Structures are given as C-alpha cells and as structure tokens.
C-alpha cells in the first residue's frame, strides 16, 4: 500500500513534539475526519525556520506526510517554506495511494497555517498566504482506492 519511504517516515517520524515558545503554530484538519496536524515553527530574525515540530492524529500517511513536510522546511527561509506544495511532499515520499493524497494536502496546509500564524503575530507579510484559509474540502474519503 505505502512506499518504502512512507513507511520509513512512519516508522521513524522526524520532528515529533511541541515547541514551547513557538513563533508560529498551525493546526488543520479535525478529529471527525480522522486527521489533525499541528505544526510548531521556530523562526529566527532572518526568517529562517530553525526548528519545526509536529503533532499528528491520523493514519500512517498523515504521520509520514507531517514528518516529511517538517523535514522539507527545516532550515529553509519562510518564502521557500510557503512554496511547499503537497505534490512536493508526495514526491519526496515516493508517492501516496490516491485515497491518501489529502494527507499531503493537510501537511501543506499545516505549514501554511503555521506561517500565517507567524505572519500575523510578527506583522510580516508572506507572499502567497495573505488571506490564508485552510481548505476543509480536501477530505474526499470516498475516493476509490488505487
């Protein structure tokens, strides 16, 4: 069902946990649908993401997507991080079953949501998430399995 890469990130998820004094926190998804992702960002004065942690309630691919997304933005400038797409997450994971694609979307949105929080708190403008609203419609759980 899952690629080796997905399983590897699921088995050993990177960056699990909280950041007490996070500069940005984003949470998307809801328990009803079975996935919640929460991302914590530590961002330095040059807008570089120096630390990132996540907490995820969800399936294997949700955990792997969170892990991969945090890896992909760690050490990056916020402008780079905001450009992270779910496609990039999927690619980095070597693919996801079609019914699990929403997990990667969730990861993208969790990152954006945390950046939006940082932007709001810090008064900065990050191009691309000016009016950020996480999209609730990504949970197309009835999709046919690949």
């Amino acid at each position, binding site marked *: 069902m899952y690629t080796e890469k997905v399983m590897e990130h699921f088995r050993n998820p990177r960056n699990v946990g*909280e950041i007490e004094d996070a500069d940005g926190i984003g949470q998307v998804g809801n*328990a009803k*649908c*079975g996935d919640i992702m929460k991302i914590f960002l530590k961002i330095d004065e040059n807008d570089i993401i120096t630390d990132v942690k996540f907490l995820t*309630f969800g399936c*294997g691919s949700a955990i792997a997507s969170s892990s991969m997304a945090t890896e992909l933005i760690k050490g990056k400038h916020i402008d780079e991080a905001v450009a992270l797409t779910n496609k990039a997450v999927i690619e980095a994971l070597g693919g996801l079953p079609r019914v699990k694609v929403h997990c990667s979307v969730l990861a993208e949105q969790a990152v954006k949501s945390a950046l939006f929080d940082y932007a709001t708190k810090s008064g900065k403008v990050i191009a691309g998430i000016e009016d950020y609203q996480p999209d609730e419609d990504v949970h197309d759980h009835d999709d046919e399995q690949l």
Partner: protein
Amino acid sequence: MRQVYLDNAATTMVHKEVVETMNKYYGNLFGNPSSIYDFGQTAKKAISSAREKIASVINANPDEVYFTGGGSESDNWAIKGVMTANRKKGNHIITTKIEHHAVLHTCEYLAKNGYEVTYLNVDSDGLISLKALEESIKDTTVMVSIMFANNEIGTIQPIKEIGDIAKRHGVLFHTDAVQAFGHVPIDVKEMNIDLLSASAHKIHGPKGVGMLYVRKGIKIDNLIHGGAQESKKRAGTENVPGICGFAKAAEMALETMNDKMASISVLRDKFLTEIPKKIENVKLNGHPTKRLPGNVNFSFEFIEGESLLLYLDMEGISASSGSACTSGSLDPSHVLMAIGLPHEIAHGSLRLSLSEFNTEEDVDYTIEKLIGVVHRLRQMSPLYIRRK
C-alpha cells in the same frame, strides 16, 4: 519475529485437512457433478454428503442448503430473492443499522427500486430493541434481516426472540450468520430462522464458497439463473473442491465447537480485562457478555486506527480497525457510529479476533506491544498532548 494473527473475523487460515480434502477434488476427481459418467457421479455424491454436513451445523434439512460463492452472495440472494418473489405481499423490509455492507448495500439498492427499508437502531452495546422491531412490522412487511452476530463488535442478537416475533407476525426472518456459523450453536428450527447466510472462509474453510439456508416452501427468486444445479435455485458448475472443503471445515467446527468456545473466550476475556487495566482512556465496544467468543473491540482515544494497525503489523500482529471488508474506505465504521461513538473515538478502534490457533502467549505478547504502540501514538497526538 513472532507472528500473531488476530484478524480471524476477516478471514481464517485454512485447516490443512481442508486443503487435503480440496486437493482430492482438484486431482483425479475433477468431474462435473451434473454428468452421468462415473466420476461425475462421484463428485455429485461428495456434494450430497457436504450438504448433509453443513445442514447438521444448523439443524436444517440437507435439501434446504444451497451452496453459493460466499457470504455476500448469500446475503444478496436472500434479500433480493425473497423481496422480488414476494412483491405481491409487500415491499417492506426491516433490518438494522449495524448489518454488514452485503446486507446494507443490498437494502439501499432495493430502496432505490421501489422498496421500503426500516433500519433499526441499536443500543450502546449493539443490541436491537425487540419492542422496536415488533412495532416496525406492518402489513407490507415481507421480511426481517438481522445479523446473528456482528463482525466488528461481536454482539450477538436475541435471535430466537426475533424469530418468534417474525413468526408471530407472519414475516420471514433472514439472518446473516457469517460470523456465527460454526462458532456458536445455531438451530434454525428452534430459533425460527427462515433463511441463513454463512461463508466458508470464516471457519478455516476456503474463500469463495458460502451457503444459503432456505426453509422449505419459501418463495425466492434466483439471483444467478442458468443451469439446473442446486435444485435449479443457484446456477453454475458446482465448486466441488470448495464445497467439500467448506463441509470439512464445518464438520471440524461442529465437533470442537464447545471446547473452542470455552478456550477462545478465555483468551478474549483476558484481553477484555487486561487492556482497560493497562491502558487508560480505552472503551470496550460491543456487549460485555453477549458477544462472539473470539471478538475483542476497543477504542483507544486520541489515536487513529490505521496507524495503530501499521505499528502492530511491525510487531508481527495482524488486526483490524472497523470491518476488513470496507477498509478501502476511510469512513469511520457505520457500526461504531450506530452504537453512538463520536467520530474521533470510532477512528481509534481496534478489533482483535481470535481463533483456535491463538495462544495465551499471543495475548500476552499483543497486550505488551499494544501498550507501547498506543503510548507512542499518543505522544504524537495533538489531542492527547493538548489534554495534558
């Protein structure tokens, strides 16, 4: 690594005696039972004797047993066959909210085609209300289809009482006994069961073989029309090896039923008592005592079932979350919804289903691993961490 198979409600390991029986018919005895030459006739006799064995498990007459291609076919046939054949009598069928999809989706299909379906509620243990059942019967009611035991939470319905009500009101009673057949005693005569579905692969028999018991005299349309097999009620060249394998498995199940019910429920009860002691925030799903000997179902709050299964799989433990038959979908199980679980708790459900091949060591090993896995997932869960 230790391998612990705890998904026997999904499917079971085939007994080696069953495989041997089947191989006999894959070998020299491959004849078509409808043929008149000698070894076609041998196949025919084998089917007759299989029919007797299967009938004896539920105290039916052999000529009331029809072989099918599995439990789903049996359910579809029972419901569509009876409803269409008795259309003049009425168009109403009563079932429950916790049936297997083979029953539910069949009823939904009927509903789209001019039939009326009542879905009975169940209480938090998964039991229907006999009063509600009785009240829902009306002039147009043709049949009641209520499962013997639930595949997810293991709850066993008051079948005899349901049969009595159906009989009193002159409506037919079908029960999906796929999870109960060969596992707990069934007597179609005493329980007033008119139709009963069973499937071989749930009792260490082959996949793709099932049966429908149809009480003599009941009007039922064919689901599969064609050749004259199965007294013209179910067409298709008989799956002789499969049927004989099913019968062998049924015979073995019947012979050892009492012992197995006792020994398997001891293991089950160890799970039922130990898990809540060792893991906080768990909820038992299904009735505490009126449940299948091999069924364990818990919800672990704050975590999601698939992750749980995958981590358990890494420890060599095979289990299930919600019905295995529907794991293609990610919707929380309709059964867990029907017993009133909130979505997030339904998502965290785990079914462990035992067979005679499980040991106490399996149980101890599973509990130990489960403690670690649940802890690990909770440490990742925003629902759990926030709570602290």
